[in-house]
């Protein structure tokens, strides 16, 4: 039962080590997604299903898609077609595929065998997190909202194409 934690930790460390040693940004992004998924599985095993869902949705979903968009915007030109042909070869996705297959096996095992995992004591339920977040930590939630708004406006302002010259 505890072996699931150690396998997921092993997958996380391997994929993170692959992230910082890859040369191609897209390869590194694939490994980073696998690393985040394994950390999400660890959250689930530790009794934090709400954090696991947030990790998959926001980290592995939204933030990584942002990275992919920027990598796509940076790799313009006819060089990218050759590159895309190279990306379709199996040595790009065979490593992340194997690692995420290990995670899938583990997830199926957890969902099948350990049915009592979802109802045991020691799990911090999403309801409890929500009560605490909108009770004593309401000010922190407001601050996070203002931070996100500032990030949105700032990213829009920085990413906007500036005018050629100001008619001044």
């Amino acid at each position, binding site marked *: 039962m505890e072996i699931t934690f150690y396998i997921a930790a092993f997958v996380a460390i391997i994929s993170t080590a692959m992230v910082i040693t890859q040369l191609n940004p897209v390869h590194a992004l694939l490994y980073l997604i696998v690393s985040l998924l394994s*950390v999400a599985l660890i959250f689930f095993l530790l009794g*934090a299903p709400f954090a696991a869902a947030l*990790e998959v949705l926001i*980290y592995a979903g939204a933030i990584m898609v942002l990275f992919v968009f920027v990598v796509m915007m*940076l790799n313009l030109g006819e060089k990218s077609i050759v590159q895309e042909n190279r990306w379709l070869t199996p040595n790009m996705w065979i490593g992340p595929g194997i690692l995420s297959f290990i995670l899938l096996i583990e997830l199926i095992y957890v969902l099948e065998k350990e049915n009592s995992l979802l109802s045991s004591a020691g799990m*911090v339920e999403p309801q409890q*997190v929500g009560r605490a977040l909108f009770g004593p930590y309401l000010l922190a939630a407001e601050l*996070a909202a203002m931070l996100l708004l500032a990030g949105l406006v700032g990213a829009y302002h*920085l990413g906007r194409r500036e005018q050629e010259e100001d008619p001044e």
Partner: protein
Amino acid sequence: MISIPLEHGLYLAAALFLLGLMGILGRRNLIFMLMSLEIMLNATGLAFIVAGARWGEAEGQIFFMLILTLAAAEVAIGLALILLIYRHFGTLDADRISEMRG
């Protein structure tokens, strides 16, 4: 709920944090440096979750959510800055854009 020792979870968080630190110090591409920053933030969140699971409190997940919003805002700004730098300098090499003369 499984009984992982507190130290093992923290060892994993420390290992991921060190890998991210090595990535920041070792790589010279700005995209990879931002990804390593994400790894470090994620390792910090893992440490919070491990501590929250150890004492069965919801505060660990709340701080993880705060770290998550921080990471989202930081990535949005950072990627916009990377696009701006690439437009100005034509490169993402951190050594070649080290002179910020404005």
